[in-house]
């Protein structure tokens, strides 16, 4: 296989069993790192604030990204808009370790995602079903983020999409070559090998984290018990009353996700979690997880 791609998926593998935390300045980045984050996502605003403001959300100011890179020694990720390959070029020039082509920012291109093979920096992309995940991998994504509804503190959409992808992978089990070819067409993917590999592995062929709406120790462990390789936590940490304590607990939760006694212990006394939003109260056109296809 292409060595350049193996280095990208290789870094994704090193992140497994870890928590990637959204941060908006050097001080938050240091807290995230001290809490045990495996990487930080450098942002202008956390999703909860982007949602509240309802304005066009773009790539962060390079100054901000540099400030955060300087503050920590763990990998630094940054988001660009879907399809905005120039924002991605700028992020690559800033030498971030990973780019998130993210629906949390406003979509730049309604037709095409970024051709990620053209970059040396690895990409992570969101997906709410198997077709989206495989299309993103075919475009060169080295890691998949199951889409939840970012900035809500509500796990329901993340769980829905984790289950959707699982069901669709299970359905591949007894498919014949011909059926897979038809499915590839339906999924709009060119390479049937990608479907065959998924069928054989019984999981996505790249590292798969959960994201969107994770606010508690139990939320993080739930995603892990459902087979995720790790979690992204956005607003859930720095919108809670005690970010350092909560961040530390979520890091533990992703390691000890199968140990209910440890989960009970680390869930205790973490202060108030972020305010949550009922998904039904968000009109479909304002749902971030519906962006990008």
């Amino acid at each position: 296989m292409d060595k350049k791609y193996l280095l990208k998926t290789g870094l994704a593998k090193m992140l497994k069993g870890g928590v990637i935390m959204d941060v908006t300045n050097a001080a938050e980045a240091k807290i995230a790192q001290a809490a045990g984050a495996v990487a930080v996502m450098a942002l202008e605003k956390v999703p909860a604030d982007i949602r509240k403001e309802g304005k066009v959300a773009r790539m962060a100011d390079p100054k901000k990204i540099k400030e955060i890179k300087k503050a920590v020694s763990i990998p630094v990720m940054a988001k660009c808009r879907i399809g905005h390959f120039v924002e991605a070029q700028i992020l690559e020039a800033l030498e971030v370790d990973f780019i998130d082509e993210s629906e949390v920012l406003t979509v730049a291109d309604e037709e095409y995602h970024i051709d990620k093979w053209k970059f040396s920096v690895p990409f992570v992309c969101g997906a709410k079903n198997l077709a989206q995940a495989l299309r993103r991998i075919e475009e060169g994504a080295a890691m998949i983020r199951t889409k939840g509804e970012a900035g809500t503190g509500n796990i329901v959409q993340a769980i829905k999409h984790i289950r959707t992808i699982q069901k669709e992978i299970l359905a591949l089990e007894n498919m014949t070559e011909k059926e897979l070819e038809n499915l590839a067409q339906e999924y709009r993917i060119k390479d049937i090998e990608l479907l065959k590999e998924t069928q054989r592995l019984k999981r996505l062929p790249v590292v798969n984290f959960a994201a969107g709406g994770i606010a508690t120790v139990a939320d993080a462990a739930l995603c892990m018990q459902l087979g995720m390789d790790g979690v992204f936590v956005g607003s859930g940490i720095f919108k809670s009353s005690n970010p350092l304590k909560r961040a530390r607990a979520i890091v533990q939760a992703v390691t000890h996700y199968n140990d209910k006694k440890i989960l009970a212990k680390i869930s205790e006394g973490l202060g108030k979690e972020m305010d949550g939003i009922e998904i039904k109260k968000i009109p479909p056109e304002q749902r971030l997880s519906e962006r990008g296809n």
Partner: protein
Amino acid sequence: MVGVLALQGNFAEHLEALKSAAKKLEKIKLEIKLVRTKQELKELDALVIPGGESTTIYRLIKENELEQEIKKIKNFLVTCAGLIVLAKKVEGLERWQKTLKLLDIEVKRNAYGTQLDSFYAKIEGEVLNNKEVAFIRAPKIIKIGPEVKVLARIKNTSEIAIVEQKTKNGIIIGATCHPELDSDELAFYFLKKISYL
């Protein structure tokens, strides 16, 4: 019994490489499992510490109070972040981060730069001779103690890729790279060594 420390990182790839290597050592019966708690560390003859983030792994060792139990184990195979966790001296540690100081080497963290500076390179030596291995946000070994032997270097350079140190009653094998991503050769070398100790 061989444990793979599954606090964070690519422990699944290590487990796979070890299982594949163990199959080739037919005569020796080995149990290999993932470990996360003090109790699970107690029964081990050997521990593998995977790649990942050394800051995260250190934090989890500390909060789960694993340090004393880890120090009682005789044999270790460590790669990348795992190498940093065991190193005696590390340049570029976070202020609050400590290491277990079992392996007598001096290491520089993130010595090559960011992910853009990650690379595949051929290494040469006693193990994985002439094989290409991945160096991902890799550390660099800048000094080794008198008891430490170099097992492999990056081809045509003086840069150390894999080392071995004999300890009172075991061995430590440490790599700055990730052989486990592409082969079971280092796992095989390690299991063979500890089986005949």
